[in-house]
């Protein structure tokens, strides 16, 4: 798998994306674990994880596009898909949370309309 004739630049980019992705995703999960109330936790994954995984996918895209020759489009597709669906998931979960009257943290300035 260690492809000798992969240009250093490309390899650097791939590596960068890998690390960046990992860190971003990790932060997202940390947020999920640490933040006070549900609505705050919601922010972590919807952005960070999506982006983080996105980075990984880009890395993979570059990697395989080089290895296989041609464009390995599946990753792009996945990324696109993630970015399209993640907000909706978040939206739905937020609705559910509102529906179930989840408590907001004490620092919340203005709560949801009916609370």
């Amino acid at each position, binding site marked *: 798998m260690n492809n000798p004739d992969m240009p250093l630049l490309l390899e650097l980019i791939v590596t960068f994306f890998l690390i960046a992705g990992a860190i971003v995703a990790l932060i997202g999960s940390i947020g999920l674990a640490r933040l006070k109330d549900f609505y705050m936790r919601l922010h972590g994954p919807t952005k960070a994880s999506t982006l983080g995984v996105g980075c990984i996918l880009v890395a993979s895209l570059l990697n395989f596009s080089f290895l296989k020759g041609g464009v390995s489009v599946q990753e792009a597709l996945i990324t696109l898909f993630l970015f*399209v669906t993640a907000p*909706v998931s978040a*939206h739905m979960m937020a*609705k559910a949370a*509102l*529906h179930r*009257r989840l408590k907001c943290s004490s620092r919340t300035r203005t709560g949801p309309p*009916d609370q």
Partner: protein
Amino acid sequence: MDIGLLVFLPVLGAIASLLTRLKLPGPDHVQIHALVALITPAICLLLLLSFLPRIQSGEAIVYSLSWIPEIGLTLAFRLDGLSWLFATLITGIGCLIIIYARYYFAGKDTAGRFFVLIQLFMTAMLGIVLSENLLFMLVFWELTSLVSFLLIGFTWSSRDARRGARMSLVITGGGGLALLGGILLLGQIVGSYQISDILAATDTITSDSRYPLTLSLILLGAFTKSAQAPFHLWLPHAMSAPTPVSAYLHSATMVKAGLFLMARLHPAMGDTELWFSLITVTGMVTLMVGAFVAMFMHDIKGLLAYSTISHLGLITLLIGMGSEMAMAAALFHLVCHALFKAPLFMMAGIVDQATGSRDMRNINGLWKSMPALMLVTVIPAAAMAGLPLMSGYLSKKMLFSESLLVSAPHWANTLIPVWVTIAGLFSVAYSVRIFHNVFFNGKPVDLPHWPPKKKPAGMLIPMIILALGSLVVGLAPQATYDAFIHLAVMATAITRLPLYDFSALADARVPAMMSVIAMVGGLGFYLARNPLFAIHRQLPEVDAKDIFEQIMLQCIRFSQTLVHRLENGSLQRYLAFILVAAIAPALWMLIGYSGWRGPSALTEADAIGIFGAIILCLSALGVALFHHQRLPALLLLSVTGLFVTLAFARFSAPDLALTQLSVEVMAVVIMMLALSFLPQTSPKESGGGRVVRDLGLAGLAGGGVALFAYAVLTRPADTISGYFLANSVPGGGGTNVVNVILVDFRGFDTLGEITVLGIAAVAVFAFTRDLHLKERVASAGTAKGFAEPHPVILQMISRMVLPIALLVSAYIFLRGHNMPGGGFIAGLVTAVALTLQYMAGGLEWAQERMLTRFRPLIGAGLLIATATGLGSWFVGYPFLTSAFSHMDWPILGEFELATALLFDLGVYTTVVAATLLILANLGKLMTVAGPGKEVG
């Protein structure tokens, strides 16, 4: 053949009677019925008489016709002295009974049924006595049990009749089963069921180690049939049958079958200590019990019934003694008994019909109103009492003299004479009683009909004939014996014997004294009857039927409790049983097994692997831990599924990963649908003990699986898979070997698999069709306004997702043959995408926008797959043979066409349709669609 005719003529007669009954139903054709019924017995009788000369020449006529040699069952008949004697009794008395019945049933429309049954019964009896093959005999043996069941239950409306019938069937039928066992053993010992062979194999039989068992089983059969104590209970209840039936059963048939069997097998099995003790003791007990109970019976038929029992005991006793003379006496008495018991029953019947009662305490002094009956009754009654010049007298005397000749064992040689004398005394007593008590003994006490109805004189004819018969026997014993009985005795004797010498018997003094004692004692006993009755009345009243019913009920109750204790409807218990059954034997066998660790080297564990394993275990444990909160448990379950997927992906099984993943989500969605109608939590209801037990079972099961996995993993692989890898491309035309296996090498499995999926879906459709759910889980304390059914944003996105997903599934479908993917996964992707539409837009909305008939789609899918398989026929190859070709067309470029793709299309269709059918029907449960409205 004509012997066979003897047996089967009565069947024809029965059929004839049946037809006449159907043609001429109703009470007013009894005469015709009787005439029809009389034909075949008469013919049989004549046939038998025509055989007499050949029999007297000492010949045993055997006719045999193969039926099922596999089990040694042949249609074989044997007519020798013994069977001739019995057959004659059966047919002869049968004729008389029919004549008697013609009057007895006058004006009853049950007559037809009687005549049918009685002839069937005759067949059965003739079959027993004429069979040469013991198995064949057993057929008739059981037939008698069945027909007697119907005869005793003849007046089914009465409770007694029903119970009596059941009782006799269970006892005699049970005996029949024992007999079956005995006969089979005998057949094993001898190597044949032909009586001729068996009679020739005495030493083989008696010396065989299985002899005792064999003998006991056979005797069990004989005793139950011949109402030997303690199986005598059923016989008295045969009297709840119409009198002709009782007369026939008691005198000539049924009860005599057992005696016949003993006599028949005596040469082969007799002459041993065991034979002697088993039979004599039983005979003695029966003799005494019967005689004693008979004395205290007030019911005429009851008295006669018990007297029969005691006489059977007597004959059994003689057979037990086993000497030639004893056999002679036995058969002689058997004939006598038949001759006097039948008329006595007929008398009872007449009295019964005339006075409407059978209770001797009420029936008194009938001599005035029924003198003829009295006169006819004198002879049989005297014969039963054993008064001088009567047949009974001789047979008693023969018995007494035989009892004196008993040498070994010691206990017998003094006990038996005394015993039989006392029994004789009793028999005198009850014989005197039945005569005197009925015809004299003062005035009748409030009888239903008084003065008694006139009964037609014709009823007396059979009685007279029989009475004369026993008179003849009494007066000319030697002649009768020589003419008819001696041949029978020869057939039952082990050694050839001289004719029985009645003149010698006449001179014998001790027996004479014994009979005198019996007579005098008996008379005295009768005179002192009233105080004795008084004493007897103190004794508790026992009805055998009740005892029997009680026993039956006890058995039933026991079985019910046992069954309920085991099969208590608790699934948990059943599953525990199954697990134990699965674990225990293997555990037992593998205790101390050391070969778990196989030869091949262990591979070192890598980080990801361990990590995945840990999460998998954690999530699984989490499910078990949180299963009381169902939704969280469900989430954890999908984590488990996800990591199973990852495991597949990790260990080079992309197809499995894809499948598992799609299946997982569908399964979770379905469970969630179901969960919306179920409680959200499971109560904690298992007790500590139960939990411990289950943990134990779970631990054992898991440990077992782990051990096996370890054992296999540490062994080198040696499989047939090399073939698949080698032939996938050349033979199957695909590089994705797994897919080629699925659609080609083992396409048949896949066909079955999608059939399962299809059936499951149709089944769900079928049994949710009429299911309508009222209440859904109430989500309490929720805010209003956020929960619109179909959020706009969700809808918009789902619409965009759908085409993409379809494209992807098309892609997965087409690449399947060469790359991970295939029809099944593609189908699930499509299904999931459409499910998303269901969720976003609602069932109705989606139903309006798509092909809504899923069942035909399932059918189509299955048909496509099957048709692909059948296609290969037309090129002469077996089902599911695949064909493919790589084409490289000028402009189009290189592409492949494979029948496997068509097969996969069938899979795809079925999967999509089945999955959606299930979802749609789950979804409709709460919608306005409601019950009845078919979805899909």
